[in-house]
């Protein structure tokens, strides 16, 4: 039924079964952070579970470096998981009976790596996530944010190619959540892993994602960069999310510039629109946008900036 294009509601009416995820095709590129954003029940968790093969897909393929994960037997899948995949869970999924360092070393332990080696590696990643000194504490002695750092360390310890994050920060309170997002951005700038990140928080998606997929009722409404979603929402549903977003913070000079020859003050293409406002207030003349090598790529005038601000209210 799903194959013939019926919607989720129609399938539910006719069969009593809820369609989890359907017709979702996407590629995640090496070193990219790909965020899937959707509200609860949209199928985003089912999606990541299918991709990680915690749930078996009824139909479809998940390929990693050309290998089809969905067709793999348990043994091969286990080997792939040991070497290439890792996951950070919404409710941490830590082992309360193991110390922080034994939690972090778990992935290495199941691979049969000696205690000295796996502890050395665990020490390294725990330091990386800022948990040095907590190695011999137990998870329940740590705050939620620190627990998720343990989850992160555990995922990083196996040196995976692909990291899955299933709403990792949604159980944390807002300030801790922001810290953890910053931490992830910092780590990712060093490590450059391929990340599939699930969230229900549009702001988080925009902050972290190189590309974002908006998911609703088991299908993708739109895939694009943050700026693409904001400037050119594909559906009303996507538009609704972009409403509350302070666009001046997300959009860059490159997103709002027009072709033209400048000569006045220069701004970089990746500067946020927000940072242009003080310049505009000082002097209404258009700004010249230059790329990394200093070549002029366009101009931004007052109207363009005002349009961004106006749309937000």
């Amino acid at each position, binding site marked *: 039924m799903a194959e013939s294009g019926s919607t989720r509601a129609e399938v539910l009416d006719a069969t009593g079964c809820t369609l989890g995820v359907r017709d979702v095709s996407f590629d995640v590129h090496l070193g990219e952070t790909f965020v899937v954003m959707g509200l609860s029940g949209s199928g985003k968790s089912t999606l990541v579970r299918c991709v990680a093969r915690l749930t078996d897909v009824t139909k479809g393929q998940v390929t990693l470096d050309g290998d089809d994960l969905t067709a793999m037997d348990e043994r091969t899948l286990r080997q*792939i998981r040991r070497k290439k995949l890792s*996951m950070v*869970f919404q409710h*941490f999924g830590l082992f309360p*009976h193991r110390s922080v360092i034994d939690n972090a070393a778990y992935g290495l332990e*199941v691979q049969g790596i000696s205690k000295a080696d796996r502890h050395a590696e665990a020490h390294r990643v725990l330091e990386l996530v800022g948990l040095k000194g907590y190695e011999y504490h137990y998870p329940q*002695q740590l705050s939620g944010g620190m627990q998720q750092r343990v989850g992160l360390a555990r995922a990083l310890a196996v040196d995976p190619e692909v990291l899955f994050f299933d709403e990792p920060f949604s159980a944390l309170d807002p300030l801790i959540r922001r810290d953890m997002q910053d931490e992830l951005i910092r780590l990712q700038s060093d490590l450059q892993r391929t990340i599939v990140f699930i969230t229900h928080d549009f702001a988080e998606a925009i902050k972290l994602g190189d590309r974002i997929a908006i998911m609703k009722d088991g299908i993708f409404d739109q895939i694009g960069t943050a700026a693409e979603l904001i400037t050119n929402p594909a559906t009303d549903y996507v538009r609704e999310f972009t409403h509350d977003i302070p666009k001046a913070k997300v959009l860059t000079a490159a997103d709002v510039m027009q072709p033209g020859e400048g000569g006045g003050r220069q701004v970089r293409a990746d500067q946020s629109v927000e940072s242009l406002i003080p310049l505009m207030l000082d002097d209404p003349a258009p700004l010249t946008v230059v790329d990394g090598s200093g070549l002029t790529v366009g101009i931004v005038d007052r109207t363009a900036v005002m349009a961004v601000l106006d749309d937000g209210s």
Partner: protein
Amino acid sequence: MTVASGTVGRSVRLDTRTWAPWAALVGGALALQLAFSSSSGFPAELDTFLESPIDRAGSWMRTNRLSHPLFTKFFTPLSNAIDSVITHIGDLLLWAPWYVVIAAFMMIAVRVRMWREAAVIGGALFYTGAIGLWEESMQTLALMSASVFLAVLIGLPLGVWAALRPRVETVARPFLDVMQTVPAFIYFLPLFMLFGIGNVPAAVATVIYALPPVVRLTTLGIRQVPRSAVEASEMFGATPRQTLVKVQLPMAVRTIMTGLSQTVMMALGIVVLATLIGADGLGSPVLQSLNQRRTGRGMAAGLAIVAIAMVLDRVWRALAERDPMRRLPRRIMLGAVAAIVVATLIGRSAGRVSFPHLWDMSLFDPIDNGVEWARDNLRWFTRPFSDFVVTKLYLPPRDFLIDTVAWPVLVFVTGFACWRIKNWQFAVFSMCALLAIGLTGMWELSLDTLVQVIIATALSLAVAVPLGVWAGRSRRVEAVLAPVLDAMQTIPSLVYIIPVVILFTVGVVPGIIATVVYAMVPGVRITALGIREVAEESVEASRTFGATPRQTLFGVRLPLAAPTIMAGVNQVIMMVLAMVIITGLVGGGALGFETVRALQRSLFGLGFEVGLALVLMAMILDRFTEAWADRLKPPASS
């Protein structure tokens, strides 16, 4: 049910669907009664098809015990192995100086900083020694720990298997149910046949008794491990075995241990009965005291059993405490172990091993005087009470069921009741069960026991439900009741039956009283729980409508607590059945007496028939009350 339109209340006209079954019941019962009125008892010619083959099997076993490979190759070596484990543990406990034993047990609690528990362990063990029962206590401790160890050895893998394979659980569940429903003493005779007398049949009976909770709680514990933890393990490429050993089992340990502690406490009840089949330990002083009617000494020994129960419970709790942060540093523990070893060596070489003679059980003899005084001065009450129970409560229904009602009527009525409460499968099952009871010649004895069971259950509930409601509504009442209830359940019933026998003389009455005391405990507990579980919101809603406390109790609390209370009734009945053998020991007659007789004279055939009758009765009553509890539950939301 048709409701007349436009009027308030129900129509006078009854739907045929409502009254037809009842008419059939009355009509059928009357017809059967008339047809079979000439023969009141179960036809005797159908009896004994079971007894003689089993007796033959029994005597075959007796003659072939030393020669047949079934014994020489299987049961005897198995029996010897179990026996040597128990003996070795017992010998070790008696070889080590007593103060070392006490210190070592206390250390288990100290290790996780459970200071109060350590004090309880020390005090309890000291009591058993001070009263002159050190040796018996160590024997009981050995028997219990060996049994529990065996139960874990068998139950743990079974529980894991059931947790991982739901199909296994479906198959195992009915067996576990029966194992838990059947009173433990029923296993005694067959085990006695297979393993001979002594510690082994007692240990095996305890294992059988302790196995179901171990399996169940292992399964439960593993299922309770959060999915995220299991998935995390899988995501890191752990094999199912790695996930089990490194994640699921360690996380389930707490649940398993907690359940085991409960089981150990309950299994201690077997200790006294185990004396009947020749086990060593604290049972024999209790049984002796009963025979000599020495209340005080019975109490002294009974308290020693309670002390051992407390030790096992606290030790178990300490072992279940998995929080690594509570552990004392390793070097302190190593130091303590070293100190214990040194103390052992010094104590052994100095010859200071056995507990010094402080007191003995005669310390409790003054209690005897009190009981005798009560016997002589309370006759004005005990006599009439005893007479009332026998002539008004016990004899009339017993005679009615045995002499007046024709047996097919009972089978028919039981079938009808089971059909109404559950379904026709259950009706067929109970009717067949009743027929089987009749066929084994246990008809009259079973009815006799049934009447006693019903009286004891009714009296237990009459005490337990009001008490439970009271405790459920007041924290303070519960705080006062809790230790009393604990004591009532842990003190072997044979201990408090001694004064009861002295006061009421042997017969049906002391059995019933002891049963009520023992069986009301779960009734109180579960009723209190049920009342407390009622959502505060419902109670407050009732109050805002201006309901009086009484209206709230009868209109809201009790109906909402009813399913839980009914589950308590089920427990009470099972406890009452477990006491049947005790009533037999004090002259209650019926199936209980036959059980004791069969055990003491090795009447295998008779023992089997009695056992079968009790098992079948227990199964009918268990399922009946369970179905009743289900019916009381409000319809579940979809």
